[in-house]
């Protein structure tokens, strides 16, 4: 029943919020996301003490065609749930000193998104998983579209059609598996224990892989991403980059690997090569970027490229690194986009060149921004280091040369991140009479929380590794 509670809190909140107005909306949204966070902590303790039994929920939805609802929990799901429910209050809080039109609808969509994301991570039946996967797309589309910047109609439509096209391919694969399975069931356990014949897995792999690769995004399916990140309102970008990308990488581990093992074995080299190409390509483009949000978007492609490369290395350290890095990247990228938003909000200036001297005016902001950047470039003792180290080690075990190229991400990442920081924050102000008030109280809470998380996770990554180890070891078999 705990699973249902996890889902119902944000859903009820989303409906309630529709009837609120003005400042009440964001306060309510904050309260509900905090309630959900507290409940997640409770769920974590239950999971530690009693195991996954308390989360099992199995019900029949329809007899013909057989549709089941199956919610469950394991270590990997729990990590993703924690990430989602931890980031949501921060994302809500980050909008506290911004004016948003029609806030009740904005926050209602956001909580609906939380509902769908929670659903994706605890679904253990292909059908219900697909439904939540689609449901997550609708609120983020309307958030980016209604509150987005210039050119939003075109950009968001491209995003929507791109991702929906991918999911329809996945739907086709699920339907095929449904017909092939003896019990006509899409249950995760039955799909992973009787994989379909390896003659079909070869193309089934691509059906799933394209759907996930678009969401992650892996090159060459990434073209929607930079535009969407640049256009969407910052809170929408945070949701997209912090959590929604992780749907893709999570699904690789949860669905693709167990369901089509032969297909994965057959195409492993293509997938991992694409991922590594993505790392280098996106890093190089990030160096060339003039726009801050786009730079962050491409750096995000590079980071998730490493995550998927680690997954397709198919060994324990790659898997573990990917889960740690999913969590770490989620936290860091939300912080980075928030810092970008703070800069753009105060200076109306989104270019990397032509700014500077922020450190003199806002030392607190400069410090926390630096910490987040250090986490993002994987300095030892920060969260980025743990994940990237394990990922690179995983890739190295698969192929030395690929690991060498993948390792470029750390060097190139340092190049574009530190250079951006130097140009925008350090030095003297290039703009005359620049006004840059230091952190507002809500901004301070968000950045400090993220900064602390970066160090805590970097020094004690143990809990996440511990939670996911049994699941991932199982996957190796």
């Amino acid at each position, binding site marked *: 029943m705990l699973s249902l509670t996890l889902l119902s809190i944000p859903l009820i909140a989303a409906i309630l919020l529709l009837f609120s107005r003005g400042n009440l909306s964001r306060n309510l949204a904050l309260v509900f996301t905090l309630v959900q966070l507290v409940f997640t902590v409770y769920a974590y303790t239950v999971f530690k003490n009693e195991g996954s039994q308390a989360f099992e929920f199995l019900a029949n939805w329809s007899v013909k065609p057989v549709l089941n609802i199956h919610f469950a929990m394991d270590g990997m799901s729990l990590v993703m749930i924690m990430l989602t429910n931890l980031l949501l209050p921060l994302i809500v809080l980050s909008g506290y000193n911004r004016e948003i039109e029609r806030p009740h609808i904005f926050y209602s969509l956001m909580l609906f998104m939380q509902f769908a994301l929670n659903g994706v991570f605890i679904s253990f039946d292909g059908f219900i998983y697909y439904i939540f996967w689609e449901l997550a797309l609708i609120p983020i589309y309307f958030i980016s579209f209604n509150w987005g910047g210039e050119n939003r109609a075109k950009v968001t439509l491209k995003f*929507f059609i791109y991702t929906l096209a991918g999911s329809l391919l996945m739907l086709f694969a699920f339907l095929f598996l449904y017909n092939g399975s003896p019990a006509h069931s899409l249950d995760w356990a039955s799909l992973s224990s009787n994989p379909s014949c390896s003659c079909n897995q070869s193309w089934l792999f691509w059906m799933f892989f394209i759907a996930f690769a678009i969401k992650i995004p892996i090159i060459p399916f990434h073209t929607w991403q930079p535009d969407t990140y640049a256009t969407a309102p910052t809170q929408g970008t945070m949701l997209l980059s912090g959590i929604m990308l992780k749907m893709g990488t999570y699904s690789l581990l949860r669905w693709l690997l167990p369901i089509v093992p032969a297909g994965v074995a057959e195409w492993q080299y293509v997938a991992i090569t694409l991922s590594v190409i993505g790392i280098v390509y996106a890093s190089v483009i990030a160096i060339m970027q003039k726009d801050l949000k786009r730079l962050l978007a491409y750096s995000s492609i590079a980071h998730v490229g490493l995550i998927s490369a680690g997954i397709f290395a198919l060994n324990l350290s790659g898997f573990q690194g990917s889960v740690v890095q999913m969590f770490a990247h989620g936290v860091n990228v939300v912080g980075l986009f928030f810092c970008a938003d703070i800069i753009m909000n105060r200076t109306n200036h989104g270019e990397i060149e032509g700014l500077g001297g922020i450190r003199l005016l806002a030392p607190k902001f400069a410090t926390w921004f630096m910490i987040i950047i250090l986490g993002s470039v994987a300095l030892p003792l920060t969260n980025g280091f743990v994940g990237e180290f394990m990922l690179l080690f995983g890739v190295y075990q698969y192929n030395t040369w690929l690991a060498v190229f993948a390792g470029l991400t750390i060097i190139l990442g340092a190049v574009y991140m530190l250079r951006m920081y130097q140009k925008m924050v350090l030095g003297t102000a290039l703009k005359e009479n620049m006004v840059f008030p230091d952190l507002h109280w809500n901004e301070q809470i968000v950045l400090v929380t993220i900064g602390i998380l970066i160090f805590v996770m970097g020094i004690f990554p143990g809990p996440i590794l511990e939670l996911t180890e049994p699941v991932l070891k199982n996957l190796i078999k």
Partner: protein
Amino acid sequence: MNTLIYTSILGFLCMVLEIFNVRKLIVPLLVLGLALIFGLNLNDWNSNQSFFNNMVRIDNFSVAFSGLAIFVTLLIFILATDYYAEDHNHISDYMAILTFILVGALMMFNFANLTMLFLGIETLSIALYIMAGSKRFDIRSNEAGFKYFLMGSFASGFLLFGIALIFGATGSFDLAKIADYTIQNQQNISPLFYTGMFLVVFAMLFKVSAAPFHFWAPDVYHGSPALVTAYMSTLVKIAAFAAFYKLLSGTFFYTFEKVAPVLNAVAILTLAVGNLMALSQTNFKRLLAYSGISHAGYLMLIILTAKNQTAGALFYYSLAYALSTLAAFAVAIPVFKAAKSEDIDAFNGLAKKNPMHAAALSMAMIGLAGIPPFAGFLGKYYIFTEALQSDYFYTTLVAIFASMIGVYYYFKVILAMYSQPANEVKMEQSFNYNLVLWVCLALSIVFGIFPGPILNIF
């Protein structure tokens, strides 16, 4: 049987009321009458009786579809109160003819004899020709009526010729006896029979507006008055598909293998034509016409699998499609009226003026595109499973790609409402339109979340 008789009486009553000069009462009385008939119809559930020497058979299939048809008509009549508010002189004629369309549809659900099928189709079509041309001073409406009449007559000719040839081969009009004939003469079925069967199938393909027999649909949908278009794209389509399904699953199932390749090709072509042509439409009614053609393509997948008794899928999909389409028209009709234009541009900036209506139309469009949690998604899901089960692998793949394309043109309407600057148009609020709108959307979500009772109705 009661359903059919009482509905006909209701139609006549409409014309009689004209004499007593109580025009204002016509629509309320009709709505009341239809509600009663809806109840009476449910009474026949599980009764399985036949009438008039097996001309008409009432079974669960016909009861379920009759219920759906009456429900759709009821909603259309609620819309009609406001739609014909300014054309009060003719309201009794219009309402009577609309009721007779329902009578024809009911016959198409419970026929057990090919002559009954023909009578049903003709009753429905002739009434529809008149309604398509009912805006007498509008050249487009005249064109629609005339075009539909000409093309429809051809199709009726095909149907009649086909029926005659089947009679020549089998010596009977009775569906059961024709089926018996095909089973008993397995080896030497007369070529007359095959010719007849193909002619009947082609006539039905025309009626469901499947490509390449679809050319009439966009022009007729475009020219007809909006309310009639709504009626055509819901009730008439459902009736034609139900009759088609009944023929293939109950009568031609033994010789189905012969038509299957043709139907398969038609399904693929319909999906392609409907979706590709919809991409470039700027008129909302034409857009819905092509979207209707593409939905006909999805429904063709059910016709292809008719041998496996997939009536549940047909019913669920028809219901989902009808609910979303009616919701779309319940927003579109008042907007058209206010804007005096039926282009997608008429919706520009609706989100700023009427956020509730814009949200509602978005929901209807998302429902038509088949995205959860609306019933349209499960309907597609069910159809695709059935098609894959019958090994129509590539057809299903085409249908998946068609759904991708579909998203684009449904979202064009949403984009117009949310991203374009608002136009001057002031939309009238009306209780009746809002009632239909929210009932349809609520049911669409309810059936999308609790599909069980409908999916397994048979």
